[in-house]
């Protein structure tokens, strides 16, 4: 039967627009304006989920963001969401929903038997039991039993939007307090934002019997909404204030209401909002009562049952029992009675006020005073409740018959209200326990935020209105504006306006399981167990039992849980305290957080200026740090590995062309340039002659090698540094830090010219032949331009810088031209070099060639412990006597320690090819294998036709002089190797000059 539990009239739904959907494979209908939860309730669906740990059957418990049970697997079109909170999902045509953590389906979940073993698996059971040999062996199986929904890998969330905005006043929550605040702030000339997670303004005015300024509460709310809109207040419905960060930075998650037309999944948009002042009118959450089997489907928060009935015309049950420990439960009972339900009420207190009792009499609601639910009948759906006197303590079995009983299909619980203090707590505000309301309420703010209304623990309507109004007045006056509005006057239908409450943190029924945290399956017994085992801090309780750690963050369970801990340890809830609330208030999807940062936008890579020309040359591009660069240039049918070997050989024996544009180009300019660079580098630079280059190391203050590179002195007052491609930004920052932080008196400017110049490197036996083909004013003779010399001039009519430098061990020329000429110069050099057998070569081929020469890559052949002496660069350590960055650290005991790892070469002694990168060099010590270092760079050398490797090895240089043989260990196998010089090819360096 369709919509069997839908009331004939009423509600905010549009009855002309029917929406069909599937739940657990069965077809249902709802109306536009329904949430998925209200549509299920209108169809009499009870069982919506299986619990996380014990696979207990569960039904919807709330109507809002605090829902602990109604997590559904929802598919709409090509979108899938594995753990959607049914209370927050707008129903849409064609929606397909299923319960989670059930196999094969909710009713016949095969893991439901776990519940029978529950007394053997209390809190901490898994960790205590599955320790040997180790937890990881058991974990996968246990994880399968417990859990939430599963991701559908084929579902691709469309890109979400991320926006930044600022406003003067943000009001979170559009209940009576929030509306009163917004009304007072409207028209003040300030930018005011009002957000609410519901689709309609009014909060609890939408279901309670209230009157404000002569109108029904809901009508007033609608009218105020209209006024606000025309006064320019920005109203955002279906928007959750998810996080409150430092300095009034709020994260808002807005749901677009595209589902309204039934044509798509509601989109999401994340707002990063900077507010000057914030008013928190976030309302409160109704707590459950704790007694045996209080988690059965058919047991629901009393206010939620009233919300479903009034706002969605969906009656969660026909024969109701309302159990309450406070006056507010009576109002829910009356609301439900008035829509036609058969209602009985049991008050756990022995002396409710006489006015209330006579009001119930008038409404035709029978009241069992001083009674509590003792026993729940019905497993997958409630069919009856046995009541017993609150004062007597009874055993679960045997005496559970009770003195009163009732057939019922819905049990509504009202355990009092907990102010939604989450955002205030996130903002750093403090809370205090108030026994009057048996809950924590705000006591102080750290940021410019004020809590009002129910969020402040003030539940009476007039208090909500007045506090909202006053808070807005205060915010306005702090921002230099004034309100013109009169404070609203509200009244509640007597006598339900009272929030008098008496705590009953758990029933005194012995031996049965009473549920505290529904979503994480934590019982009162688990809390007691934690207390017995010494977890008496609320933070320990939380971590030991997982109380409040589910995706609902314990919105309905925290207060009950910590109060029970208090009872166990003879402390008041205030002494126990709360855990810290952390963002987000409700789960945020990763897609919403990522925004547009996905696929290639996740991390943008820098492109070489000559990219187009590289692609013409057949480049295989790869990302190296932030740069996208050619790895090699495979010919047709050639593998990348083969291309690398070919290029590395050809670039030596003939000539090769490499794009080195990503190499840093940082100019240090000014009268004190020499002094500054001399203090920054390990090597001396003040005595470098203009027009010459020097290879230098830069250290950090702890003496560790930070970077290496060639420094050119272009003129007396201009140095050009070329840090490694991936360290260039870091070096730039380091220079600025030292200049601004330590030596601001030095007159230098630091300029990053990296991306202004394209740098092409021609290297190899025939490189000078290619240079001489260029039309230029540069003299290429070795007399004018020897190795490690620098020149400026023109090449093919454009300005050019020439550095005679080499990272391959061959004669080499680096030509830098303005970046826009990079591609043209590449094509030109390829064509000029053709007669000499020129080949383009990539980073991988370069890497082989530099390793053949023992030239290091910082961060690959060095690590966070490598000092210059470990690389064999001892000169400046001995001879440079001015203070430079890192110098003092080179004289610390650690720097002088015997047995430091030093750079060496390893010669493979077997026929098994190159060593593995990262393989450890080992030695036996007392029968155990210990690492003495590791392989940093290992290749097959095409020119030597054998494997080569560089390594960092303890006492490497001594082992090298001794020609020692060592063992290299990798994945269980050991290989012999000989310690040799790191320079494998042309050790005298003749090829650089000849």
């Amino acid at each position: 039967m369709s919509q069997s539990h839908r009331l004939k009239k009423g509600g905010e739904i549009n009855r002309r627009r029917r929406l069909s959907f599937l739940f657990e494979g069965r077809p249902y209908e709802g109306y536009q304006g329904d949430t998925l939860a209200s549509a299920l309730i209108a169809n009499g669906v009870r069982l919506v989920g299986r619990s996380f740990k014990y696979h207990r059957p569960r039904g919807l418990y709330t109507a809002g963001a605090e829902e602990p049970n109604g997590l559904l697997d929802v598919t709409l079109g090509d979108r899938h969401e594995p753990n959607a909170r049914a209370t927050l999902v707008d129903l849409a045509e064609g929606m397909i929903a299923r319960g989670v953590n059930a196999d094969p389906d909710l009713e016949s979940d095969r893991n439901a038997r776990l519940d029978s073993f529950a007394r053997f698996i209390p809190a901490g059971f898994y960790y205590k039991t599955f320790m040997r040999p180790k937890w990881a062996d058991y974990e996968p199986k246990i994880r399968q039993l417990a859990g939430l929904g599963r991701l559908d890998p084929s579902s691709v969330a469309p890109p979400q939007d991320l926006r930044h905005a600022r406003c003067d006043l943000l009001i979170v929550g559009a209940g009576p307090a929030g509306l009163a605040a917004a009304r007072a702030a409207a028209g003040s000339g300030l930018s005011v934002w009002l957000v609410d997670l519901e689709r309609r303004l009014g909060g609890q005015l939408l279901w309670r019997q209230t009157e404000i300024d002569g109108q029904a509460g809901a009508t007033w709310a609608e009218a105020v909404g209209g006024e606000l809109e025309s006064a320019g207040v920005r109203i955002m419905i279906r928007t959750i204030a998810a996080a409150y960060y430092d300095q009034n930075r709020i994260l808002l998650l807005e749901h677009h209401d595209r589902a309204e037309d039934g044509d798509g999944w509601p989109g999401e948009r994340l707002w990063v909002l900077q507010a000057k002042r914030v008013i928190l009118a976030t309302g409160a959450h109704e707590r459950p009562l704790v007694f045996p089997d209080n988690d059965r489907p058919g047991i629901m928060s009393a206010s939620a049952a009233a919300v479903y009935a009034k706002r969605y015309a969906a009656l969660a049950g026909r024969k109701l029992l309302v159990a309450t420990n406070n006056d507010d439960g009576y109002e829910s009972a009356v609301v439900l009675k008035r829509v036609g339900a058969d209602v009985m009420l049991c008050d756990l207190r022995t002396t409710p006020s006489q006015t209330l009792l006579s009001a119930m009499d008038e409404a035709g609601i029978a009241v069992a005073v001083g009674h509590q639910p003792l026993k729940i009948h019905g497993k997958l759906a409630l069919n009856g409740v046995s009541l017993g006197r609150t004062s007597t303590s009874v055993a679960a079995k045997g005496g559970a018959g009770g003195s009163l009983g009732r057939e019922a299909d819905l049990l509504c619980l009202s355990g009092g209200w907990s102010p939604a203090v989450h955002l205030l707590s996130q903002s750093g505000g403090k809370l205090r326990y108030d026994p009057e309301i048996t809950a924590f309420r705000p006591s102080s703010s750290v940021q410019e935020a004020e809590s009002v209304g129910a969020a402040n623990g003030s539940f009476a309507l007039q208090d909500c209105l007045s506090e909202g109004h006053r808070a807005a007045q205060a915010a306005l006056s702090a921002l230099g504006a004034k309100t013109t509005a009169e404070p609203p006057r509200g009244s509640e239908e007597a006598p339900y306006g009272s929030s008098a409450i008496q705590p009953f943190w758990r029933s005194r029924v012995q031996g049965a399981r009473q549920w505290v945290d529904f979503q994480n399956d934590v019982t009162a017994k688990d809390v007691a167990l934690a207390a017995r085992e010494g977890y008496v801090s609320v933070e320990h309780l939380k971590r030991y039992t997982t109380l409040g750690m589910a995706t609902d963050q314990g919105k309905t369970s925290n207060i009950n849980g910590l109060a029970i801990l208090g009872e166990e340890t003879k402390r008041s809830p205030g002494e126990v305290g709360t855990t810290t609330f952390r963002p987000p208030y409700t789960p945020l999807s990763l897609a919403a957080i990522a925004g547009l940062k996905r696929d290639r936008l996740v991390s943008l890579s820098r492109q070489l200026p000559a990219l187009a020309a590289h692609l013409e040359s057949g480049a295989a591009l790869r990302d190296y740090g932030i740069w996208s660069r050619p790895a090699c240039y495979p010919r047709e049918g050639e593998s990348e590995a083969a291309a690398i070997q070919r290029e590395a050989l050809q670039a030596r024996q003939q000539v090769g062309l490499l794009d080195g544009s990503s190499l840093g180009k940082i100019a240090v300019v000014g009268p004190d340039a020499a002094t500054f660079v001399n203090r920054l580098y390990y090597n001396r630079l003040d005595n470098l002659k203009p027009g010459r280059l020097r290879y230098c190391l830069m250290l950090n203050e702890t003496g560790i090698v930070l970077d290496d590179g060639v420094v050119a002195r272009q003129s007396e007052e201009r140095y050009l540094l070329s840090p490694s491609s991936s360290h260039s930004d870091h070096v730039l920052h380091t220079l600025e830090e030292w200049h601004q932080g330590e030596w601001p008196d030095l007159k230098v400017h630091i300029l990053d010219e990296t991306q202004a110049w394209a740098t092409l490197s021609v290297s190899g036996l025939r490189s000078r032949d290619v240079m001489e083909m260029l039309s230029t004013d540069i003299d290429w003779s070795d007399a004018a331009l020897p190795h490690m010399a620098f020149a400026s001039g023109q090449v093919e009519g454009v300005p050019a810088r020439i550095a005679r430098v080499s990272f391959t061990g061959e004669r080499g020329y680096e030509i830098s031209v303005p970046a826009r000429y990079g591609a043209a110069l590449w094509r030109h050099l390829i064509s000029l070099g053709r007669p000499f057998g020129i080949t383009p070569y990539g980073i991988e081929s370069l890497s082989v060639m530099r390793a053949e020469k023992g030239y290091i890559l910082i961060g690959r052949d060095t690590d966070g412990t490598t000092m210059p002496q470990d690389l064999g660069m001892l000169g400046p350590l001995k001879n440079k006597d001015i203070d430079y960055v890192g110098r003092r650290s080179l004289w610390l005991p650690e720097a002088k320690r015997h047995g430091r790892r030093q750079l060496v070469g390893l010669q493979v002694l077997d026929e098994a090819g190159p060593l593995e990168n990262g393989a450890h060099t080992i030695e036996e010590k007392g029968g155990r294998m210990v690492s003495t270092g590791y392989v940093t760079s290992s290749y097959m050398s095409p020119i030597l036709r054998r494997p080569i490797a560089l390594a960092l090895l303890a006492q490497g240089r001594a082992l090298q002089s001794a020609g020692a043989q060592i063992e290299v260990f990798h994945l269980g196998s050991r290989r012999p190797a000989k310690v040799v010089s790191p320079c494998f090819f042309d050790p005298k360096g003749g090829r650089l000059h000849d």
Partner: protein
Amino acid sequence: MQRFTCPSCGLRDEQEFHYISEPKPRPASKVGDAEWGQYLYFENNEKGAHKELYRHLCGTLVLVERDTRSHRVLSSRGATETGI
């Protein structure tokens, strides 16, 4: 999210700033190992008013003083304006 004032760019988001260290005077190179080690590896991590050096995106070094309990920024200015 905290916001600091860069002397060149104005009030900017925390994520545009890179933490460097507490400001600390660099000892002369003649100091003993212990004192040098103190300079290299130890920070005060004050609870309460606390000074920190940050580098803004634009390259400017900023000396921020803030309360580490409330994350309230007490002052932020260019490192070279004041010396550190």
